[in-house]
């Protein structure tokens, strides 16, 4: 059996013919294995879903309890048999509940990374490199220009700015699942103990994180009822990036717009988005993490998906590792 017989690219997503299942399909299918809860990976409407309990919970919060016909929780490190194919979930370090999926059949082992990062993150379990024959890696930040600095240095810049501009509020744009909670947790780790104001879109997920034992401190709704405009002077507000361009943001005094994302590494990206304080905090591996991870898996072959495939494929060629892009469609940048 060849590796290319174990996985195929289909319009629905990555398909395993012997096991008859998809990983992170973008359209409704019979059987889906899901790496994590971001909406471009976890869609509703599948007949059956296998994912970690946290990912299932998050899908339930986002889509309602009937998001799939049947669900099954995967325990990290425990192998499940699907039509004779051995499937094991391992932590990916991306967001709460995120997993890599290791698939083994007739002596060939392929690991699909889903999205992952290697920087420490107090809101999820760390990535574990799994030795394999083929490693399917994401490449969201697959260019040598993407170098994420330590996240605590970025958070320190927000706190410095908040001290410098006490009459203004700081609005941090962060993706609602994962990034927002990580930012809040980083603020707490840096000693910030005032209430953090959040946009309504973050409430359910943040509450869920707290229920899973991730302490985010006191969160308050960023609504007018909770205070007059002046009360938000010096406040730190977290919300989805789209909200800051919206009328919602008008309640805050002379806000400084911050955006927590790996894309903020590029000045022009920050400038175009009207971001005054870019925070390079990403839940995806940067260039250095991508190439270290590829080496650590020991994989003889690398398949590169969603992102900038060409540069990573080029790097593998220079290192003498077989590599090819997997042209999967439907995954967006929005996860960062």
């Amino acid at each position: 059996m060849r590796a290319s017989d174990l996985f195929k690219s289909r319009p629905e997503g990555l398909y395993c013919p012997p096991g008859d299942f998809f990983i992170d399909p973008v359209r409704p299918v019979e059987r889906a294995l899901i790496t994590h809860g971001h909406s471009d990976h976890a869609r509703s409407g599948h007949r059956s879903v296998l994912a970690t309990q946290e990912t299932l919970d998050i899908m339930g919060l986002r889509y309602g309890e009937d998001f799939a016909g049947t669900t099954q929780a995967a325990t990290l490190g425990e192998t499940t048999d699907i039509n004779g194919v051995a499937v094991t979930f391992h932590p990916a370090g991306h967001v709460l509940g995120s997993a890599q999926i290791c698939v083994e059949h007739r002596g060939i082992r392929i690991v699909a990374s889903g999205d992952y990062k290697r920087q420490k993150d107090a809101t999820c379990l760390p990535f574990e490199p799994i030795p394999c024959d083929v490693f399917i890696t994401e490449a969201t930040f697959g260019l040598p220009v993407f170098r994420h600095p330590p996240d605590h240095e970025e958070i320190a810049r927000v706190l410095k700015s908040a001290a410098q501009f006490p009459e203004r509020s700081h609005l941090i744009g962060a993706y609602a699942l994962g990034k927002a909670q990580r930012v809040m947790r980083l603020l707490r780790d840096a000693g910030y103990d005032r209430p953090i104001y959040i946009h309504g879109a973050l409430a359910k997920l943040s509450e869920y994180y707290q229920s899973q034992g991730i302490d985010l401190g006191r969160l308050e709704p960023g609504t007018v009822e909770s205070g007059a405009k002046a009360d938000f002077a010096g406040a730190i507000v977290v919300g989805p990036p789209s909200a800051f361009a919206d009328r919602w943001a008008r309640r805050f005094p002379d806000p400084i717009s911050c955006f927590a994302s790996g894309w903020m590494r590029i000045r022009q990206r920050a400038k175009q988005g009207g971001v005054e304080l870019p925070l390079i905090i990403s839940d995806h591996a940067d260039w250095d993490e991508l190439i270290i991870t590829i080496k650590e898996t020991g994989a003889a072959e690398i398949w590169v998906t969603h992102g900038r495939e060409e540069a990573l494929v080029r790097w593998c060629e220079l290192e003498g590792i077989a590599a090819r892009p997997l042209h999967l469609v439907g995954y967006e940048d929005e996860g960062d």
Partner: protein
Amino acid sequence: MNRFAELLDRLVLTPSRNGKLTLLRDYFHSVEDPDRGLALAAITGDLNIAAVKPAMLRALVVERMDPVLFGYSYDYVGDLAETVSLVWPQPQGHIPNQVPTLAEVVGKLQAASRSDGPKVLARLLDDASISARFAIIKLVTGGLRIGVSARLAKQALADLGKVDIAEIEELWHGLAPPYTELFAWLEGRAEKPRSAALALFRPVMLSNAVDDGDLEKLEPADYAAEWKWDGIRVQAVCEGGVRRLYSRTGDDVSGAFPDLAAAMTFEAALDGELLVGDPREATGTFSDLQQRLNRKSVSPKIQQQYPAFMRCYDALQINGEDLRALPFAERRKHLEAFVKTLDPGRFDLSPLVAFTDWETLERLRQAPPHPIIEGVMLKRWDSPYLAGRPKGPWFKWKRDPHTVDAVLMYAQRGHGKRSSFYSDYTFGVWAGPEGAEELVPVGKAYFGFTDEELREIDKYVRDNTIERFGPVRSVRADRRNGLVLEVAFEGLNRSTRHKSGVAMRFPRISRLRWDKPAAEADRIETLQALLDR
């Protein structure tokens, strides 16, 4: 170095003037000598470092990494300095002992010979963090491009020391990096630095606009009137063989006007307006003057075609005697006598405008004898020459602005307080044959409206968006639909950069014409007629 790099990163993304001032002031306050003085010099353009060419930078980086990967990176980022700062590979096992200070970086760059410059630069980049690498590359490639003028940096210094910016401008040309004695004075640790340098800039006297009701309170006999020339305010200073032509903010602009500087063979400090033409024959228009602006070097042909001259209206010092404390009437007599001794092709006197009452002056103001006159100046006969903008002695009474009815075409989100509002508007007027009219953009304005009007326009933009490009929305605007804006502006220039061929000076929204159908907005010919006048 990291603090300087962080300052640059913040400044480039901070749109508001007050925000920039806070960042600069905090930096000058918290960073020690000589680093802060070198940073100041880098910002004001007074730091001398031998330049490294972009091609050399590129060569350095592809010696160190795969050219194909560099190519992908550069294509993506689009800016060479930024790409190199990001992809620069730290040598294997190389851990710098400590982050170099700005002074160490500048010292090494200044000491480097032309031949070992690239090697020195490479070693500095090896030791630096990503944002420090970016700052170093900006220093050696020239031009920080952070949206901070020398004047804004001086304002931050003035805020730091709680002194008037005029004091700093007056000192500035006698000081040199790293400005240790300047900071010592601003922090109250030393006396104000005394300068022995010659031909220093004297802070200029500015005027206030005439407001409604101002004139009724003033006695016409107390004031002299002059035309207000729409050139560039300059100060010509010659002292002990040193000649300098300064802009109104104290920047030395002698290099851009070598023809005028060559004629400065006197001992005096004169205040006046730089214009082009030959004052004995004809004064050029603003379009002519534009040929001489914003040029690093100026060809002999341009100098001949558009010769610069100075129309003098005040004397601050003549033959070593400081006249600033004298009343305007006295200074004027000195000036009149002195200008007669100067090269008549390069210097003339700004004439007084005779009037007996405000009504007469109003008529003159409305119909000035030359297109480059933009109003009248009123100067109290008994006023001394005071730095800054004192209220009372000098007034500017400008010609009423031109207005045009234009249609809103694009709106862009603002910053800070306005970051959730579409507050920057691009507007156009009609062009093309009847039945096939099209809007051509003629300008952009982001003020002139009230907060309430801003909310109304913002709602209009959101309700009538047809396309989005990042922070910009394209708004429905055709013969039947569109918001008409009355735009006021000071003048028009010919422009080859704009499709419409015109560029507005100082445009602002003067009225929202909700009542006016889009089809009845003005045509481009209306503006073109203004150009030809």
